[in-house]
């Protein structure tokens, strides 16, 4: 039983576990039959092996608001968004999987999902681990769409470790912060920046939105996800 409790974070154990990886791997034609804890650990060792150094290099941002490598975007015609998760220094491109019911489902290649409102407010994340289960930011969205400042209530729902919803209510102030010109995917775009500062019982967050000067679309934003995932930076690259 001690064995089960003495695991520190697995990442630090990787070198030790590598030795046992082959022995742990197991094989067969039925996942249920072989499903001992040991096999599951073996799978984790394999996934650690796949994270090579080259990939880690590409994840390192340069400075400021990091963007996707232009080479990845060149020639694409479907709507695309770049996303950067600051705390994990992870960068990804997303495309639209589906839109409907007031929500647009964006996906990365490895099935991380972001649900955004059509204008670009973050509604939910999936696949980050510390996910935003769902968010209600209708009032903030309305203020930004109207180009106004004001106060707004925002509600975030998270799931705890036993899947109970944990609600975080935030009181926010939305402030128009003036016109800014962005360059996204070699296009120069006139935007108006809005800052949203929110306070809750134990949290204080700041979100930023760069809304198109002549329409409701949020071209770029920095939106807080969760304590575990931090803030996500989003850029609309192709519409």
């Amino acid at each position, binding site marked *: 039983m*001690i064995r089960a409790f003495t695991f520190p974070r697995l990442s630090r154990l990787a070198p030790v576990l590598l030795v046992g990886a082959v022995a742990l791997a197991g*094989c*067969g034609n039925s996942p249920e039959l072989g499903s001992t804890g040991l096999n599951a650990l073996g799978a984790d060792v394999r996934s650690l092996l796949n994270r090579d150094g080259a990939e880690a290099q590409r994840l390192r941002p340069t400075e400021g608001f990091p963007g996707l490598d232009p080479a990845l975007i060149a020639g694409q015609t479907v709507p695309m968004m770049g996303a950067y998760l600051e705390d994990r*220094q992870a*960068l*990804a491109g997303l495309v639209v999987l*589906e839109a409907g019911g007031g929500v647009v489902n964006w996906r990365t290649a490895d099935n991380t999902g972001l649900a955004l409102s059509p204008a670009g407010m973050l509604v939910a994340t999936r696949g980050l681990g510390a996910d935003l289960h*769902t968010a209600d930011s209708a009032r903030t969205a309305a203020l930004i769409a109207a180009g106004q400042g004001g106060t707004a209530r925002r509600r975030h729902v998270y799931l705890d470790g036993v899947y109970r919803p944990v609600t975080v209510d935030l009181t926010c102030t939305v402030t128009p912060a003036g016109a800014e010109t962005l360059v996204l995917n070699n296009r120069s775009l006139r935007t108006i920046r809005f800052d949203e500062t929110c306070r809750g019982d134990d949290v204080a967050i700041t979100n930023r939105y760069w809304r198109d000067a002549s329409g409701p679309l949020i071209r770029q934003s920095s939106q807080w996800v969760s*304590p575990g995932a931090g803030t996500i930076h989003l850029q609309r690259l192709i519409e």
Partner: protein
Amino acid sequence: MAGLSLSGLSLSGLAPGPVSPVGRAEAQTLPGLGLSTYGTPGLIDMPSATAMPDGTLSSTIFAMRPSARATLSFQATPRLTLSFRYARVQEPDYRLRTGNALHDRSFDLHYLLLQEGRYAPSVAIGLRDFIGTGLFSSEYIVASRAVTPRLRVSAGLGWGRMATRDNPLRDTGRFRGEGGLIEFGRFFRGRPAPFAGVEYQATDRLTLMAEYSSDMYQLESTRAVRDSDPPVVVEPSFRPRTPLNLGFRYQASPATTLAGYIMHGTTIGFSATFALNPAQPAHGGVQVTAPSPILRRPTPPAGGEFSTSWAANAVGQGPRLRAALAPALAQEGVRLEGIELEPRRAVLRVTNQRHEVLPRAIGRTARVMTRALPHSVEEIVIIPMHGGVAGTAVTLRRSDLERHEFDPDGAARILAGARFSDPLGFPGVGRVWQPLPEGRNRFEWAIGPYVQTSFFDPSQPIRGDVGVQAIARLNAAENLSFNLTLRQRVFGNIDQGTLSPPTITDPRFTPRVRTGAFRYSSDRLTVERMTMDYTLRPGPDLYGRLTLGWLERMYAGASAELLWSPADSRLALGAEVNYVAQRSPHSFLGVNDLRIATGHVSAYYDFGGGFMGQIDAGRYLAGDVGASLRLERAFANGLRVGAYATLTNMPFDQFGEGSFDKGITLTIPLTSLLGRPTTAMPSNVLQSLNRDGGAMLRVPGRLYPTIQDSRARALRSGWGAVLQ
């Protein structure tokens, strides 16, 4: 999905360490769990009136030359902390096992009587080492109070070992008989001694502690004369100089605390604590790939209903539907076993292959169905299969799913419209025969490693075997299979166990039904199990099982079980009868002359809040008659912590050391350690000792554990994961 392969980059790098979903600290002034060297709420050796966050499971290892102890503590309710400890003590003359290290098990109970109020302190009462042979046996009452947000003081009174500072040791004769009993008469007896302590939070991670201890390690520090020929004087291993203990605690991560101590001015000690709080997931949350979005149907035509005319042309479309659905469900970790499509209802049977919580598998199945079913299908019935046994049928309304995917109360609203019912009666669910699903292999196999452990052997507390195991299954039907498990040990030492002296002399009882189990471990190829396994549904709410063959390492024979378990009931009742022969330790398939009839009637009860109770009454392997009581707390993520005790008509002196069978059961979901979904849930039983009294047969596939995750009450408890 070609457009998705734009970048190999991923947002989901390895998440940072455990983070509370909202960063909200528990109602404690100082960081960390605040556990003592005994792994219980406290300072250094002395207790404090605090508790861990509800549900927390912690393990603390403490070492101080020449002693060491490992403690497992569980916050069973917000106020009740239960602990189990295994200690190694070196002292000169302990129960005449002179000079040798003594290994001892002990249990503690710590109860918070009063929470800290505006002016009042918190108050706790506790029993340390209240069962068993009583090495640490002591009782206390303690009050704690945060003077400032960074400073907490505690003071209390101790009895027993915690009153040895000023008193001469008054009660060395706390041991009687075979041990293992609670002796109420000795609690809070004799003159108590006061103790006190202070904790100061120096930084976010560092806490400094000082305490005035009332435990002077009298047993360990007494000079002894060995009563041998010639007499030998044994010098004590530890000589306390002062009652003052000093220490620090360092919060290395949210789950890990390291601590160092100067004990009684003479010795240094160290401890490490690892904690698992089921409410605070490792890595901030389970990292599970994003699910299929729910596809919303268009508004129905003028009549308000979608046309069902497709159904007339759908004859023979079943295989095509299956072929389209199976890969989509497989991506979500769900195996499709069968689908029955009706104009307004679809009934699916699925096996969860990935998710530690069943409602997530149900939600993901439903999501895929919204993308595939004709518009007129409003009811989606999902029947989770557990081997050949159909679990509770979950009926969801498709329009609820469409409306509430991103609703803050979405899961609750979908639950409000959901129905849980007995799967018997739904198309595709058989009573006595469940045909093997299309596409399932008739022959399944797996080769992998195994680890077997043996705890608390008197000569060596932990023994283990490691080897390779091959599992093969021939499926005649989904509910009838032939199973073989072969094991080949690679290395290990379980077979070097010690055969305890026989204690059973009464001819009513059969000796050696479990003692000597270590003899079944060897370097030979062994048949762990070779069985025919059959399950059936004799009637509504009734489940049946028949298992024949080599059932477990020690016994071969026949086992039959009947369970009554309504889908949405707190109560379930069962009965099991077995007739077995004892297998020969070193024979491949042979048995010896011992024949045993054993069986139980069982009652299972869900008290709510995850608290589960079970009573088994019947005839045990040694022929003794009695009952077992099990209490367990089950969490939605699969963590289960429980304890059991068995009392039978076997007298304590016939039972031997420990007096009666009792133990702790632990099931730890690997998800909570790895941070990604897996159905793997290693479980362990910590028995106080593997004795012959109160011993049960270990039949694979008992019915209640098989279906317990899909009881309606269990589904509701993890329902929040349905939209995860």
